[in-house]
């Protein structure tokens, strides 16, 4: 068993970044995730593993530091919260276009605009449908516990390098700020420069290798036919993610007639709601998407085929993921939404009430 600690989600993430063998963290403080860079600075990873930690002058600079670092084939990571992630969107689009691997953490807070520092899940569309300009997708993981704030870091790096694509961990202010027991994984050594060149030297700018073609990192192509092909190549990659990387969790679904669909902190609240509803004899289960892109459409479709009587999506927004649930369910079952926004957290009792009025009785 790995080392056990009581940690905040943000701290567990920061510790996991060091242990995952990251080469560089570049970030800018913003509530509710500033503990990440504070923890990293206090831990001196430049002494522990040789990892670079730098407080950038803005999120704009931070994401472009990631672009530069990722372009050299090293493991780079940043974290921010909603307004800061918006500011990074230009760079994220460039990284998707140039096919650069990186890990992005968004500890969501309420918006729009400067919004609030309270938890939210209102960046779902931004994270899963593109966000920046151009046709692209991020691979999006949604942690629902402090444990997953740690566990998803090495997974995210693996996926980022497997697909040469940015991976976003879409968390929220609840998961980032709450403390839970976490079992830390054993440290993974950082790649040596030689290993970086061996693994990524065919595409990364590591200095022109003698006897080999030089490498160029760019998202620019002025020839429309070649640019169209690039877009098709990107979508072939996204198609592969859709076939191979869908992850989800089911709780109490074996005999369920009704389903709550929720991710992140909303899934934790919904888990309690299911206990309460089951105590009243309602056969309800939870489907928790772990990857928000690619989305587990097939899982929902299977429930419909087995006669599901209705789906309630619970989100800390005005109803964003419900669009994906509707894409899966179509008109073959009932789909309704319940949520709060602006930093207001739904209670399990409210969720049960919504299930009764909107799905069962509705």
């Amino acid at each position, binding site marked *: 068993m790995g080392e056990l600690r009581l940690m905040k989600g943000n701290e567990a993430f920061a510790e996991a970044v060091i242990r995952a063998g990251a080469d560089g963290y570049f970030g800018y403080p913003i509530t509710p995730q500033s503990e990440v860079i504070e923890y990293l600075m206090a831990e001196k990873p430049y002494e522990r593993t040789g990892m*670079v930690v730098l407080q950038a002058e803005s999120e704009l600079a931070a994401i472009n530091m990631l672009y530069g670092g990722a372009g050299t084939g090293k493991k780079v990571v940043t974290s921010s919260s909603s307004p800061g992630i918006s500011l990074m969107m230009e760079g994220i689009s460039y990284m998707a276009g140039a096919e650069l691997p990186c890990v992005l953490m968004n500890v969501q807070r309420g918006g729009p605009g400067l919004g609030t520092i309270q938890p939210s899940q209102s960046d779902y569309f931004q994270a899963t449908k593109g966000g920046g300009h151009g046709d692209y997708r991020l691979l999006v993981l949604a942690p629902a516990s402090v444990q997953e704030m740690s566990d998803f870091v090495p997974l995210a790096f693996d996926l980022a390098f497997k697909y040469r694509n940015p991976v976003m961990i879409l968390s929220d202010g609840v998961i980032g700020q709450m403390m839970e027991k976490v079992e830390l994984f054993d440290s993974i050594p950082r790649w040596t420069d030689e290993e970086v060149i061996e693994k990524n030297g065919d595409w990364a700018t590591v200095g022109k290798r003698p006897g080999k073609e030089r490498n160029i990192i*760019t998202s620019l192509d002025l020839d429309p036919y070649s640019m169209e092909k690039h877009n098709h190549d990107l979508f072939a990659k996204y198609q592969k993610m859709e076939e191979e990387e869908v992850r989800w969790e089911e709780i109490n679904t074996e005999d369920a007639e009704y389903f709550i669909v929720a991710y992140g902190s909303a899934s934790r609240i919904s888990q309690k709601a299911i206990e309460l509803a089951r105590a009243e004899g309602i056969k309800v289960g939870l489907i928790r998407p772990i990857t928000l892109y690619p989305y587990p459409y097939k899982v929902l479709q299977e429930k419909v085929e087995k006669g599901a009587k209705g789906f309630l999506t619970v989100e800390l927004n005005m109803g964003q993921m419900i669009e994906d649930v509707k894409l899966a369910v179509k008109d073959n079952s009932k789909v309704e939404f319940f949520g709060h926004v602006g930093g207001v957290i739904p209670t399990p009792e409210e969720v049960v009430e919504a299930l009764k009025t909107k799905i069962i009785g509705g």
Partner: protein
Amino acid sequence: MELTADKIKELVVKPENKVYTKTPLLTDKTLSYCPGCGHGVAHRILMELVEEMGLENDTIGIAPVGCSVLAYEFMNVDMQEAAHGRAPALATAIKRLWPNKFVFSYQGDGDLAAIGGNETLHTCNRGENITIIFINNGIYGMTGGQMAPTTIPGMRTSTSPYGRDVQMMGYPLKMTEIVAMLPGTYYVSRQAVYSAKHVRKAKKAIKKAIEAQLEGKGTSFVEIVSNCNSGWKMTPVKANQWLEENMLDYYHLGDIKVDGKLVKEIV
């Protein structure tokens, strides 16, 4: 004797007649720059230095957005293409992750002084151990000749068609003097490439800048005052004359900071 192309080649192209060869660190791609533009010369001296200093396999360069957006097509080393203005941020991470590589950014005035002003300031202020080559032609060349932060007072551009009115449009920004004031910069110089004499001096300055980085001294920064005959709507010859008579009055040539010390009064 009829002088065909092949005959000329046979008569002229002999090793003993050779006085100059293009460095292999410039590709054979036709430059996308207008004939007469200073970019080609700046590319050449930079790549000649990378070759002469034996840095071919240890160089990572960064191209900006602007006329030199395609610099990676011409400079035959590992290159990254940055978002508009962000080249110094890329360079920061690359150098910190690969401290033994020679890392440079090559940026125009719109890229470095306008949209990327913040990245330029903070990168220089942190004293990142990188080299910034700054091409200042006082105009946005690629987008068709709009006003730049460096456009001099009275200069006509497509967005200052009656001349830059400093009361309405602000003053030209002397980024090079600004970064020279920051403790993070070690070598700061302003050069030009419009005559053979100036090309030689500019090459010496860029060499000093590269050496500063190899010695780990902090940020080295070389501005090259250049021309834009297309944007300025002049012949190349006239553009060079205009540069000498007008631009250099505002942008004085020479070293500004050497060995971490100001060597010129900043006005």
